[in-house]
């Protein structure tokens, strides 16, 4: 184990910390100078769902230009999880049932059904 400090990596970490603080705190600290209209505030009600959908969907069906679409167990398991939620209303069923469905579908796809 070495104890030499790599200043390049420390610099990157400090800069990324600065990114976190600048983006998270700027509006909370100086927001009074940039007041928001009521319609803007209403619009922000949709931001959470939009942000989460924007993170989840590309993870389920990833693709790259010039490469064939990857279709594996993930979208199938996600569909199973949605159906589970619709039938049970339980968010824990989404996680546990979805994970089990993922392992099951992956097995089925691997054996070629």
């Amino acid at each position: 184990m070495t104890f030499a400090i790599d200043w390049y990596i420390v610099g990157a970490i400090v800069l990324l910390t600065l990114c976190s603080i600048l983006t998270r705190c700027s509006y909370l600290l100086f927001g009074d100078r940039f007041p928001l209209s009521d319609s803007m505030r209403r619009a922000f009600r949709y931001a959470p769902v939009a942000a989460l959908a924007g993170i989840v969907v590309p993870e389920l069906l990833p693709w790259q230009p010039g490469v064939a679409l990857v279709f594996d167990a993930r979208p199938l398991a996600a569909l199973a999880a949605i159906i589970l939620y619709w039938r049970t209303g339980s968010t824990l069923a989404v996680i546990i049932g979805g994970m089990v469905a993922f392992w099951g579908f992956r097995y089925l796809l691997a054996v070629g059904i």
Partner: protein
Amino acid sequence: MRQQERGPSRIRQIRRQAFINGARDGVVPFIAIGTWGFVIGIAMVKSGLTESMATLMTLMVYAGSAQLTALPLIASSAPLWLIFAAGMVVNIRFVMFGAALHPFFRELSWRRRLLLGVFSSDITFVLFMSRYSDARRIGTSAQLWYFFGVAIPGWAVWNVFSLVGIFMGGLVPPEWSLEFGAILALMAVILPLIKSRPMVMCLIAAGLTAWVAQPLPLRLGLAVAVVAGVLAGIFSERLAVRARGVQ
């Protein structure tokens, strides 16, 4: 001032209850945070960071997607300004979150607002706005302590599981694909929020946009998807209002 007349013990009770409500709403999202933290802990070590550097990064940066974005840049010795710029772009959503949260916390001292910002995350924003975006009174002490109830345990869960990933990640076989559990946990956060047609439209628009835009660098696709989802939500809401007006 009305609160003071109710006595300090009553205030303390309101705060404690709000904190507990936040922590309780956070249980399922905390599973997502913990899994993500664990996966990113492993990713940091795998990309070549030493355990001590990975620990420093976890404790200081507290921004999973920015860390994931920066890792390949660091591994390829990219210039520091590029790492900084990439981190800013990935974190742009936090500026929007801050703008939405600001009216609730504007009366607080700057030190407290700084603290709120540092501890805020995607999950604190999602849970807080889902609960209070239609609140008639804004800036109550219950709202502040609800925020802490989500934010502080969330911060702890993230860091503990990141450290577990850094130091013990090798013990979990990669074939388990635990990272998919984090995706499922995020889905478990979204599904209960989809209660109205505008929310459905927002979900479809954001999902489609994010899917089409995923080759964009620096997770810019995510920023575009948020804008598209918000626009679709507002548009659908206006259509519903107009349809009601015609009848």
